[in-house]
Each structure stands twice: as structure tokens, then as C-alpha cells.
């Protein structure tokens, strides 16, 4: 069982987390991650997120399937937004359910590491001087090596 949504609309983090926990029959451990738009003290007025429709869903589904296999998950959820986002908006969330906490944590970190560098999203920061593409970080690429 897993659910994935690539969407322009905002989502309700808490409502999604509750629905996920309620549906994860037999789980002892639920981990969620949510990424928020940081305003960096006013330097960032928002984000514009571009993605590759079709490939995005395919790439995320492949990561989720791999996470199930590696960590024996009972359930997983990925929601990722695209389009225009404002400061403090939730960009995306991941939720994982497992019998025990070590697997739920590891799966959430695995999914995050792969979403950062292997799902076709590109972020643009909108600031007082206009829009600027966010550069990929070396440490995000390095993070993949641990899996």
C-alpha cells in the first residue's frame, strides 16, 4: 500500500498525517518529514517549482517501491507540490509506517535523500532581486552514497 501525489495545490500536513496513521494497520512507528519554504530573514519571498510531469510520478514510485523492499514498510506516502509557493508553505511531505522505529526513520531518510536529487524538480527562489535557480548541493549527492 502506498500513495503518491504530485500536485499544485496546498495540502494539510496534519490531516494527511492523521489519515496516514489511521490507515497504517499494525504499524508501531510512523515517521513524517515536511519541508517548508524558509524565508531566510526576508531574502526569499517564495519559490517557483518546476517539474517533469510523468517522469516525476514514475521516479517517486520507483523510490517508494525500493523503500518498501529495503525497510519492510507497512505503508508510505509522498506528496510534493509544484508551481508557486509562499514563505512557510509546506513544499512536500513524506510519511512512513513500519513495525519498529528504526525502519520507519531509515525509510523516511532514504526517501528524502532520493527526492532531493533523483526526482525531477527544480526550485527557483523568488527574492527582492528577482528569481534565481537553486543550485544542487554537493552534500545532497553525497547523502545518496550511504544507501
Amino acid at each position, binding site marked *: 500500500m502506498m500513495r503518491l501525489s504530485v500536485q499544485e495545490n496546498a495540502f494539510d500536513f496534519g490531516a494527511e498525517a492523521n489519515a496516514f496513521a489511521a490507515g497504517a494497520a499494525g504499524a508501531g512507528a510512523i515517521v513524517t518529514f515536511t*519541508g517548508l519554504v524558509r524565508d531566510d530573514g526576508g531574502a526569499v519571498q517564495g519559490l517557483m517549482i*518546476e*517539474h*517533469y510531469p*510523468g*517522469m516525476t510520478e*514514475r*521516479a517517486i514510485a520507483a523510490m517508494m517501491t525500493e523503500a518498501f523492499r529495503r525497510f519492510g514498510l507497512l505503508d508510505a506516502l509522498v506528496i*510534493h507540490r509544484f508551481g508557486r509557493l509562499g514563505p512557510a508553505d509546506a*513544499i*512536500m511531505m513524506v510519511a512512513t509506517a513500519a513495525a519498529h522505529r528504526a525502519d520507519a526513520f531509515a525509510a523516511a531518510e532514504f526517501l*528524502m535523500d532520493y*527526492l*532531493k*536529487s*533523483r*526526482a*525531477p*524538480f*527544480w*526550485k*527557483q527562489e523568488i527574492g527582492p532581486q528577482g528569481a534565481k*535557480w*537553486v*543550485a*544542487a548541493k554537493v552534500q545532497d*549527492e553525497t547523502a545518496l552514497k550511504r544507501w
Partner: protein
Amino acid sequence: MIEVLYFSWLRERIGTNREQIHTSAATVGDLIKELAAMDEGHALAFADRTSLRVALDQELADFSAPLAGVREVAFFPPMTGG
């Protein structure tokens, strides 16, 4: 004929998000050479290959990958999701 897609600043430099290309290029590397030679925008987009990524029919691939049977090629910079 192959459908070529561009994202992020590759799209901006080239000035379009997709174009149809008639090519007999055998590999991604060969296709990049052809595209880079088209005009200034393409040349600029493909100037730095270390920050270039490619997907063939929506799967990540290497520059040495063959194009035989491929319908959709996408070029983009390193991804910044999450």
C-alpha cells in the same frame, strides 16, 4: 524523429521547453554535440556538461546511452526537489 525536452535554466537558455529533432545520433553524447551546434542559446545551454543530466523516456541515463528506440529525451540541471 525524437522529442527533446528542456527544464529549468536549460529551458530558459534555449528559449523553448520542447522541440522535435530529426537526428541520426547514435548516443546521447552525439545528440548533445548536434544540439550544441544549432545556435547560441543551445551552445550556452550545453556548455557545462558537469551540470547536465539526461533522461531517456523518463528514466535517468548516461551520456553514453544509445538513442535507438528512444522517443523522448529530456535535458536538465541537477535536480533540487524535496
